C-alpha cells in the first residue's frame, strides 16, 4: 500500500482492524481495547424522534419516524436502508446542518473535527483539485504535503485541474481525499464508493480502513452495498422504508484480519436472510 | 382669436406677465389666445421651441443670433432688461472689484455666461482685477448658490435677477449689475438681453398673432407697472413669501421693462456682441462674427 504518511500517520496494517471495532452499548459486542492515541475518540449518540419536511407545495413529509443508534468511540457503523428512506437526512442532522427535528445528537467530543463525504462530490468548481482539498485542512496543516494521498487515489496528475474537468468517479475521489486529509474525529460517508470500478473501489476501501484505523476516528457510512458494509463495519444499522425507523442492528465483532472471502460470503448470506430485500 | 403657445418657466417672470394678461383678457383684446405651456428649465423651453411644441419662448438675442448663423430662423422681440448682479451680504466689507480678490465668488450660468464675461472684463479694465484668477470661483446651479450665499459659504454671488431680488430683500446688497457692465462697454441705455423668441416663418404666417401678442405684452407690462394690487394677485406665482420681498421683486421687475426704441436696442446689442465675441470667441457666439442682422424681428420696426 502506498505510503502517504505526511497526511496520515503510518498505521500498523491496512485492514487488520487495530482500531476499536465493537460498540460497548451493543448487546453482542465486547469491550474494545482503548486506542493508544492521547485524544479520546468521539463517540456518537443519535436519537431522531421525528423529522418532518414541509414541501414547497405544502404537504408534510415525515422523513424519519424514530431512529436511534449509538456509535462507540472509534467504531465503524454502516447505515443501510431503501432509497429515499432518510439516510442522507439523518447524516445531515448528525452533521448539524439541520436542527429542525425532535430528538438529540450527542457527541462525546463536540470540538473534534468532522469530515463528510456527501452523496455528491460538492467540490468548489472554481478551485482546482488541490485547493479544494487544502481549503478543508485546519490552518496549521495548510502546508502539508498531499502528494502521497493524491497518489493513492490516482489523482496525482490532475491536482491542477478544475472539478468540471474530472469524471464523476474522479470527483468523488477528490471528495474522499478531502475527508480523509483532515484526519477527522468523526467521519460521515454517504455512499462513498458508487460510480467507481471494482478495482478502484477496493483500493479506496483499503485506504479508508487505513485512515480510519490509524487514528481514533468514529465512522458512519451510508451504503446500499451489503458486501461493502460487511467488509468494513463493526455494526450495521438497518432502516425501514420512509418514514425511516430502526429496523435492526447487526454487530460484526469479527476482527477485520479474519474477514476472508469465505467469511464474507457467509455473513452476507446470513444478514441477507435476516433482513430480506437488502441484497 | 389665434392661439399662441408660449413656453415658460412655471414660476418664472414671463409667467407673471402672461398670467396677468390672461386674467384681464388682454390677449383676447389683441386678437390672440395665449396658451401657457409650463416647463421646468430654461433648456426645456429651447428644446420645446426647436421640437415645435411651442410657438414662442423667452431667451436672449445671443441664442437667436447663434441659431441664425447656423441656419435657424428665429427672431427676437425685447422682453426685459433685467440681468444678473453680483450680490454681497449687507454687512460685507466688499465694496469694489478689488475687494473680491481672495474671496469666494459663486457664479450662476457657467463660465460662458455673458454677464459674467462682461463683469470680468469690466473688473479687469477698471480695477485691474482678474476675477477668474484672483477670486475663488464656484460655478453652480442658482438655487444651490443662493443657499450658499445665505449660509455665508460664499462671500459674493453673481446670480440671475430674480434670485438677486430675493437676496436683496433678505438684506444683501448689489455690488455690480450686468446693466452697469453693459453700459461700461458702450451701451447707450439698458439693453433688453432677453426677449420673446419665435420662428420668423411662423411670424410671417401668423403676422396678426405675432404683433397682437407683442402688443398685449406691452399693455400688460404697463398694467404691472401701474398697479400694486396686481402684484398681490400674482403672489402665488412670484412666491415671494412676504410683503417686503414681493416689493423688491416688483420694483426690480418694473426696472426691467424695456422702454427704448428697437433700433437703439439693436445697435447696443451689436456693440455688446462685438465685445463678447472678443472675450469668448466662437465658443460663445458661434460662427457669426457680428450680430446676425435679422436677429430683431422686423415686425417691431414696421409696426411701432
Amino acid at each position, binding site marked *: 500500500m502506498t505510503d502517504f504518511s505526511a497526511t496520515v500517520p503510518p498505521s500498523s496494517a491496512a485492514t487488520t482492524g487495530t482500531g476499536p471495532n465493537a460498540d460497548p452499548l451493543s448487546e453482542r459486542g465486547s469491550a474494545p481495547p482503548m486506542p493508544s492515541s492521547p485524544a479520546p475518540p468521539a463517540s456518537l449518540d443519535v436519537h431522531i424522534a421525528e423529522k418532518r419536511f414541509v414541501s414547497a407545495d405544502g404537504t408534510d413529509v415525515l422523513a424519519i419516524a424514530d431512529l436511534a443508534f449509538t456509535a462507540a468511540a472509534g467504531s465503524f457503523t454502516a447505515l443501510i436502508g431503501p432509497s429515499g428512506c432518510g439516510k442522507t437526512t439523518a447524516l445531515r442532522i448528525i452533521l448539524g446542518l439541520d436542527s*429542525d427535528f425532535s430528538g438529540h445528537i450527542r457527541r462525546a467530543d463536540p470540538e473534534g473535527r468532522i469530515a463528510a463525504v456527501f452523496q455528491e462530490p460538492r467540490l468548489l468548481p472554481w478551485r482546482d483539485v488541490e485547493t479544494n482539498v487544502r481549503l478543508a485542512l485546519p490552518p496549521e496543516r495548510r502546508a502539508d504535503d498531499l502528494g502521497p494521498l493524491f497518489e493513492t487515489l490516482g489523482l496525482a496528475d490532475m491536482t491542477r485541474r478544475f472539478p468540471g474537468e474530472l469524471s464523476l468517479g474522479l470527483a468523488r475521489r477528490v471528495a474522499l481525499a478531502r475527508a480523509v486529509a483532515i484526519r477527522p474525529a468523526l467521519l460521515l460517508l454517504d455512499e462513498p464508493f458508487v460510480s467507481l470500478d471494482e478495482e478502484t473501489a477496493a483500493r479506496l476501501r483499503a485506504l479508508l480502513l487505513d485512515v480510519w484505523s490509524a487514528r481514533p476516528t468514529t465512522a458512519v457510512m451510508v451504503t446500499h452495498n451489503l458486501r461493502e458494509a460487511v467488509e468494513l463495519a463493526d455494526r450495521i444499522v438497518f432502516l425501514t422504508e420512509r418514514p425511516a425507523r430502526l429496523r435492526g442492528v447487526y454487530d460484526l465483532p469479527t476482527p477485520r484480519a479474519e474477514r476472508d472471502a469465505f467469511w464474507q460470503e457467509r455473513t452476507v448470506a446470513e444478514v441477507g436472510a435476516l433482513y430480506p430485500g437488502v441484497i | 382669436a389665434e392661439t399662441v403657445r408660449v413656453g415658460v418657466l412655471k414660476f418664472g417672470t414671463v409667467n407673471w406677465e402672461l398670467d396677468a394678461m390672461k386674467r384681464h383678457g388682454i390677449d383676447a383684446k389683441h386678437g390672440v389666445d395665449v396658451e401657457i405651456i*409650463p416647463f*421646468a*428649465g430654461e433648456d426645456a423651453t429651447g428644446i420645446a421651441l426647436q*421640437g415645435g411644441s411651442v410657438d414662442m419662448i423667452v431667451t436672449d438675442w445671443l441664442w437667436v443670433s447663434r441659431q441664425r448663423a447656423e441656419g435657424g430662423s428665429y427672431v427676437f422681440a425685447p422682453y426685459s432688461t433685467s440681468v444678473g448682479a453680483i450680490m454681497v451680504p449687507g454687512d460685507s466689507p466688499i465694496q469694489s472689484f478689488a475687494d473680491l480678490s481672495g474671496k469666494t465668488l459663486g457664479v450662476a450660468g457657467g463660465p460662458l455666461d455673458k454677464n459674467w464675461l462682461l463683469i470680468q472684463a469690466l473688473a479687469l479694465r477698471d480695477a485691474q482685477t482678474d476675477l477668474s484668477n484672483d477670486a475663488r470661483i464656484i460655478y453652480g446651479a442658482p438655487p444651490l448658490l*443662493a443657499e450658499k450665499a445665505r449660509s455665508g459659504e460664499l462671500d459674493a454671488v453673481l446670480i440671475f435677477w430674480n434670485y438677486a431680488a430675493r437676496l436683496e430683500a433678505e438684506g444683501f446688497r448689489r455690488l455690480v449689475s450686468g446693466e452697469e457692465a453693459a453700459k461700461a462697454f458702450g451701451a447707450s441705455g439698458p439693453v433688453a438681453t432677453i426677449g420673446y423668441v419665435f420662428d420668423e416663418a411662423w411670424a410671417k404666417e401668423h403676422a396678426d398673432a405675432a404683433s397682437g401678442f407683442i402688443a398685449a405684452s406691452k399693455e400688460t407690462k404697463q398694467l404691472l407697472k401701474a398697479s400694486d394690487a396686481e402684484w398681490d394677485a400674482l403672489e402665488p406665482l412670484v412666491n415671494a413669501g412676504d410683503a417686503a420681498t414681493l416689493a423688491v421683486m416688483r420694483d426690480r421687475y418694473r426696472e426691467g421693462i424695456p422702454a427704448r426704441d428697437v433700433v437703439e436696442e439693436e445697435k447696443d446689442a451689436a456693440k455688446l456682441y462685438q465685445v463678447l465675441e472678443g472675450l469668448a470667441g466662437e465658443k460663445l457666439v458661434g460662427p457669426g462674427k457680428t450680430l446676425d442682422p435679422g436677429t430683431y424681428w422686423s415686425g417691431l420696426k414696421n409696426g411701432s
Partner: protein
Amino acid sequence: MPRRAGCDVQRAPSRRISPAAVTTASMLALLALWWVAAGLAQSRLLPTPAAVAAAFWRDARTGELPFHLAMTLMRVAASFVVAMTIGSAIGLALGLSRTANRFFNPWVILFLNLPALVVIFLLFIWIGTNETAAILAIAINKIPNVVVTIREGAQALDRQLAEMAKVYRFSRRDRLVHVILPQLQPYVAAATRSGLSLIWKIALVVELFGLSSGVGFQIATYFSLSNVAAILAYTLAFVAVMLLVELLIVQPLEARATRWRGKS
C-alpha cells in the same frame, strides 16, 4: 436514555415575527430617525415629516400631485416594459453568442455611457417634445443596463441543463420558459429593481428637460424655489408607490419563482 454532556442540537424556535410587522417596524424606525435628524437640524433644507406631509396635502388637495404622479408612473411603466423586453432579448443573445458579444460589446459600452442628457436632447428635437420621445429616451437610457445584467446571467447559464434540453429536443419556447428564464430570474429581479429606480430617475430628467407634467417637472420647479419639503413630498409619494409595487407585485412574483429553493 441517560442525559450526557455533549453537543445537544434542539429544534429551532419557530419565527414569531410576521413579515408585515417587520416592514411596519422598519418604516416607523425610518420615520423616527428622520424626525430626530430634522429636529436636530432645524433647517428649511431638512424639513420634518410633518412639514413634508403638509406640502403633500397642499398639492394633493388641488389634484396636482396625483396628476403629476400619474403622468410619471405612466411613463415609467411604459419605458420599463419597453426597456426590459428589448434589453433582455439583446442581453440573452449576447450572452449566448461569444462572437456576437465580442462584436457588439463596444456598442453596448457606448450606449451605456451616453449621457442621458444627450439622448434626451436629440430625441426631443428629432421626434418633438411628446410622450413617444420621452418614453423612447428613457428606454434608450435603460436598455444598456438591462443588457449587461442579463448578459452576465446568460453567460452563467448551466451547461448541463442546456445539454439535457438539447438531447430531449425541447422546443425553443420550452427552452426559454423552462430552462433559461428560471436561471435568469435573479438577474431579471436585479434589473427590475435597480431598473425601476433608474427609469424613474431618468424620467425626472426627461420631464425636467422638455415636458410640462410629471414629478420631475414639479420637482425641478420646486427646486428653483429651494422648497425641499415639496420636493420630498413628491419623492416620497413615488417611493410609496414603488414600495407598494415591491410588496404587492415584485415580492409575491419572486416568492413564486423561487419557491423551489425552499426556505431557510
